[in-house]
C-alpha cells in the first residue's frame, strides 16, 4: 500500500531525513516513535506530499508522491490525515467541516455528504454536536471530529501525526478508542505517537526514529521485548517509566 524507498530530505544544510525505507501493507498499523526532532512527523507528511523530499521515492497505491506529474490533490483526497492540533475549520459548523471536502473535492451532493457526515459523527459519538462550532467542543471531541472528517473522504489509508499530544490526559483515551476501532476494522494506518499502550494493543510494527534515520523497524513484540538498538532501549525505558 505504501512504500517508502531511500527517502532523504534536507532544509538547506540541515538533514531532516536520511535514507528512510519501509513498506506498509494493506491493513497494517504502523506506529512511529522517537524523540522530538527525530523526523517522524516530517516522514509522515512526506507520504501525502505535504512535505517535499529531495531523494528517494514514496509510492502510495501505485502513485509516486514525489513525481512532479502526480496530481497531489487527487492523491491526498484519498489519504486521510489527522493533525496534532486538530485543524478543524473554526468558521464552519461541525457538519460543514465534514462536508466541505466531500462536496468541493469529491463532488458529492450536499445531501449525500450530510448523510455520510452524520453517520461518521455517530460513529465517533458526536452526532448531537453536528451544528456546533469547533470552538465549542473539547480537544478530545475536536480530534474525534477531525478523524471523522478524514474518514468522510473514504480514505485508502490514514496518517496520524501525534493525534493525542495536544490533549489533556483525560481526553486521550476517547481519541485512542476511535483509532483502535479503526485499526481493528482493517484500516491501513501510520501513526506517529508516544502512546505505547496503543502500539501494544493494535500495532503490527513499530518504527523507531532518531536524527532523521529509521533505527528500528520491527514487529511490536520484538520491539517491546528485545529492542536491538541502544538508542531505542533508552527511549523505551524513559517513556515507559511512568
Amino acid at each position: 500500500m505504501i512504500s517508502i524507498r531511500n527517502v532523504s530530505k534536507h532544509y538547506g544544510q540541515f538533514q531532516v531525513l536520511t535514507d528512510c525505507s519501509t513498506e506498509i501493507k494493506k491493513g497494517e498499523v504502523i506506529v512511529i516513535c522517537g524523540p522530538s526532532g527525530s523526523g517522524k512527523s516530517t516522514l509522515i507528511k512526506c507520504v501525502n506530499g505535504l512535505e517535499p523530499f529531495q531523494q528517494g521515492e514514496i509510492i502510495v497505491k501505485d502513485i509516486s508522491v514525489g513525481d512532479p506529474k502526480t496530481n497531489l490533490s487527487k492523491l491526498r483526497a484519498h489519504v486521510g490525515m489527522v493533525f496534532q492540533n486538530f485543524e478543524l475549520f473554526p468558521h464552519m459548523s461541525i457538519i460543514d467541516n465534514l462536508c466541505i471536502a466531500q462536496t468541493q473535492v469529491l463532488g458529492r451532493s450536499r445531501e449525500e455528504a450530510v448523510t455520510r457526515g452524520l453517520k461518521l459523527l455517530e460513529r465517533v459519538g458526536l452526532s448531537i454536536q453536528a451544528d456546533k462550532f469547533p470552538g465549542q467542543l473539547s480537544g478530545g471531541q475536536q480530534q474525534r471530529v477531525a478523524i471523522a472528517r478524514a474518514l468522510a473522504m473514504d480514505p485508502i489509508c490514514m496518517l496520524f501525526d501525534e493525534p493525542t499530544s495536544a490533549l489533556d490526559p483525560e481526553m486521550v483515551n476517547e481519541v485512542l478508542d476511535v483509532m483502535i476501532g479503526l485499526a481493528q476494522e482493517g484500516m491501513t494506518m501510520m501513526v506517529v505517537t508516544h502512546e505505547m499502550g496503543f502500539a501494544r494493543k493494535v500495532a503490527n510494527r513499530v518504527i523507531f526514529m532518531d536524527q532523521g534515520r529509521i533505527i528500528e523497524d520491527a514487529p511490536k513484540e520484538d520491539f517491546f521485548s528485545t529492542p536491538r538498538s541502544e538508542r531505542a532501549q533508552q527511549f523505551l525505558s524513559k517513556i515507559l517509566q511512568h
Partner: protein
Amino acid sequence: MYEFDWSSIPGALPFLWSGMMLTLKITVVAVSVGIIWGTLLALMRMSGIKPLSLFAASYVNLFRSIPLVLVLLWFFLLVPSLLSNFFNIPRSSDTRLVSAMVAFALFEAAFYAEIIRSGIRSIPKSQVAASLALGMTYAQAMRLVILPQAFRNMVPLLLTQGIILFQDTSLVYVSALADFFGTAYKVGDRDGRLVELLLFSGAVYFIICFSASLLVKHFQKKRVS
C-alpha cells in the same frame, strides 16, 4: 464680530443630499472594487511567483508613497484622453465621476492589500496544510478556508479604512465634482455664507464618521465576547 446666518442651508438641502449620494456612490464603489483588487494584490504578493509578487509589491509601495490628491489629478487629466484615444469617446464628455471612482479604487486597493495580507498571515499555516490534506487545491484552500477566516478578523480594519475613504472622497473638489463637500462649498460661495456651510458640512462628516466608528467598535466588542 461675525454674525452667523444659517438661512441658506434649508433651501440647499436637496442639493446637499444629492451631493451626499454622490459621495456615498464613490465610497461604495471604491471600497468594493478596492477590496476585491486588494485581495488579488495580496494573493499575488504572497503567491511565491516572482513576477506577480514583485508587481504587487511595487504597486502597493507606489500608491502608498504618492499623495492621494496627485493620483486623483492624474486620473482627471489622464482618463479622458485615454478614453478618447482608445474608445473614440469625445474628449468633451464628462468622465470625472468615472475617473474619480477608478482613482479611489486603485489607490485604496493598495491599502486594502496590506490589511488583507496581514489578515491572511494571521491564519495559521497549518490550516492550509489541513485543507490540502483533504484534497483541496491551493486555490480552494484560500477561497474556502483561509480567506473567510481572514476577512472575519479584518472586518473592523476594513470598515475603519472605509470611513477614512469616505472622508477622503471630499478631495474630488479638485475636479469640481458635486459631491457633498463640493456642493456645500458651491452653495456657500454662491450665498456668501462659506463659513456656515463649511461648518455645517464638517458637522455632517463628523456625525456620520463618528457614529460609523462607534458601530465598528460595537461589532468588535460583540465579536470578542
